[in-house]
């Protein structure tokens, strides 16, 4: 592979580098968008959809760009992509099989009492904190 590449001229080399830089610039722009979305949602218009799209949708695009162009999966043998995708698919399978028990806290003939109580008490506490922000300095630095 390296031999073949070495025979290319200076021009090809420069084009190659420019390509990497272009991908990098795109990534940085996407990164800025992904950070600004949640920022806007927190400080201006509260929108869960905006957060999801900017944070997670763009993460997918960024991951795609890195995988395809930096890891060179775009020129790699198809087999590798199938292999990695299979591993990913198994993770979706795991999620699908497990979430009815873990994500849900109530199902047919069972109830996760501890989780429901924990959620209720924690949310109550958080609401109280929001109502009296002055008592909890620690919470402030986060934004």
């Amino acid at each position, binding site marked *: 592979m390296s031999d073949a590449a070495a025979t290319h001229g200076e021009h090809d080399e420069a084009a190659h580098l420019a390509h990497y830089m272009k991908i990098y610039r795109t990534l940085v722009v996407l990164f800025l968008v992904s950070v600004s979305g949640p920022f806007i949602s927190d400080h201006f218009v509260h929108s869960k959809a905006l957060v999801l799209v900017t944070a997670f949708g763009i993460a997918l695009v960024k991951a795609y760009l890195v995988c395809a162009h930096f890891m060179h999966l775009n020129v790699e043998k198809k087999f590798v992509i199938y292999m990695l995708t299979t591993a990913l698919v198994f993770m979706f399978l795991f999620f699908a099989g497990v979430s009815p028990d873990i994500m849900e806290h109530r199902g047919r*003939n*069972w109830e996760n009492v501890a989780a429901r109580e924990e959620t209720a008490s924690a949310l109550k506490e958080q609401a109280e904190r929001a109502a009296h922000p002055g008592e909890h300095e620690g919470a402030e630095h986060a934004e």
Partner: protein
Amino acid sequence: MIEHYIEQVSTYAADIDNLITMIAVITGFWFVLVEVVFLGLIVAYRKKPGVKAQYITGEEKHQKRWIGIPHELVLLCDIAVIIGAVRVWVDVKQTMPPAQETVRIIGQQWAWSFVQPGPDGKLDTADDIKTVDELHVKVDTTYHFKLEARDVLHSFSVPVFRLKQDAIPGRVITGWFRAKKTGTHDIQCAEICGIGHGLMPARIVIESAGEHNAWMAAQAALATK
């Protein structure tokens, strides 16, 4: 099949035993068939002087039939087993007949506690009847149980009922049973719960309505003393 080893005391015990018998018949058939063919071939094709083995690739259609047809028959048997299994499962675990009585069962290291409603008929009131390692129930009465665990996993298992359900700390799991005979039987813990796992024997006492009411009254009297 199972009833030869252990009594059927709950209403659904027979269903589970019949399912087991059905599976035993199906798998038994395949087991005997394959073992007979297998041993028969070993005997039939022992090395004989001057006889060379045949060259069979097994890739041609008429050859593949020998594994293809059994394979499809196995699929049919599988479907029968799945249908049988799901029907029993739905009856025993997924759907529940309306409750006539409710009992709370709590597993902890290493004992079973049982809480039954007292004279007021409600759980979690002051007059609840609490027993340890002994569960008294009425015969021919549908019980719902609310299963909890205090510390680690336990499993509430009554072999004569064919009933088993893990108890999980933090969760309340509901199930049901309906005894059809009086008597006293074992309760086992079926999920390892530490050093005393083998020392967690409890008993279930199935009584007639009259006996049970007398027992309840005696317990209530004890509690108020």
